[in-house]
């Protein structure tokens, strides 16, 4: 009740001094700032998605490329076993920042 009374008194003060437009401008500016921060956060998240996706998708490619590039022959069994293990690493890596 105390807070409601305070709110109504403040509204009355704003109207009494004719500050509506000033306050509307202030609210508008704050909203624009909020939108700009939201856009920045969205851009940051997308950039992190790209970087995270790069590490995730290119890990097997990089590992197998280096292995074959060094002159080794990759068998299907080796590839299957390594892919499963790399997949397991990928899955568990996501948990690390959440757990520790």
């Amino acid at each position, binding site marked *: 009740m105390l807070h409601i009374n305070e709110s109504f008194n403040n509204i009355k003060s704003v109207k009494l001094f004719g500050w509506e437009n000033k306050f509307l401008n202030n609210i508008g500016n704050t909203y624009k700032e909020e939108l700009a921060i939201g856009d920045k956060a969205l851009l940051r998240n997308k950039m*992190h998605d790209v970087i*995270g996706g790069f*590490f995730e998708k290119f890990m097997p490619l990089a590992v197998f490329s280096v292995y074959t590039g060094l002159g080794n022959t990759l068998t299907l069994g080796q590839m299957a076993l390594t892919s499963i293990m790399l997949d397991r690493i990928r899955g*568990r890596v996501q948990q690390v920042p959440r757990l520790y």
Partner: protein
Amino acid sequence: MANKASFMKFTLVRVLLQIDDLIIPFLIAEVLTWIQKAEPEPLEATLKMMMMALLIPALHMIVHTTWEYFCFQMIELGHRAHTSLKVMLFRKNFRMTTATNKDFSSGEISHIIMNESNKIWTLIWNGPEYFECPLHLISASYFVFSELGWSGIIAVVFTLCQIYHGYIRG
């Protein structure tokens, strides 16, 4: 005693499931290598490999069934622990008066009862992950190294980068 027994049983099952996670990839690799072989082999060797191939879905089925059963047990255990904790805290709260308790308001204690006691679920679900996560990371990296030799260092570098990136991302 019953709680200790069920905890031991639960730990044993989780450990066996982890071992199973490590066995299945090797079975898959063995079967794939066998499928690729072109030279003739004795019937016993073929039967052995067929058995090994059939072991993969059989193990998956056993793991799935066991895991589902223990998930139910975990939920049951979580509810019991959660409810017991709340009962204990409520009992304590009812006994406390403003004369005996000057540090905490009853609202604060109610908050602990209704919200903080839910943390017990984190222990139930995430507790084993604290051990399983490094175990899987280390064992998987080791197997990558044993299969690909020093080329596996690329996987370790990528893993470390991913972990670092995860912390930066927050």
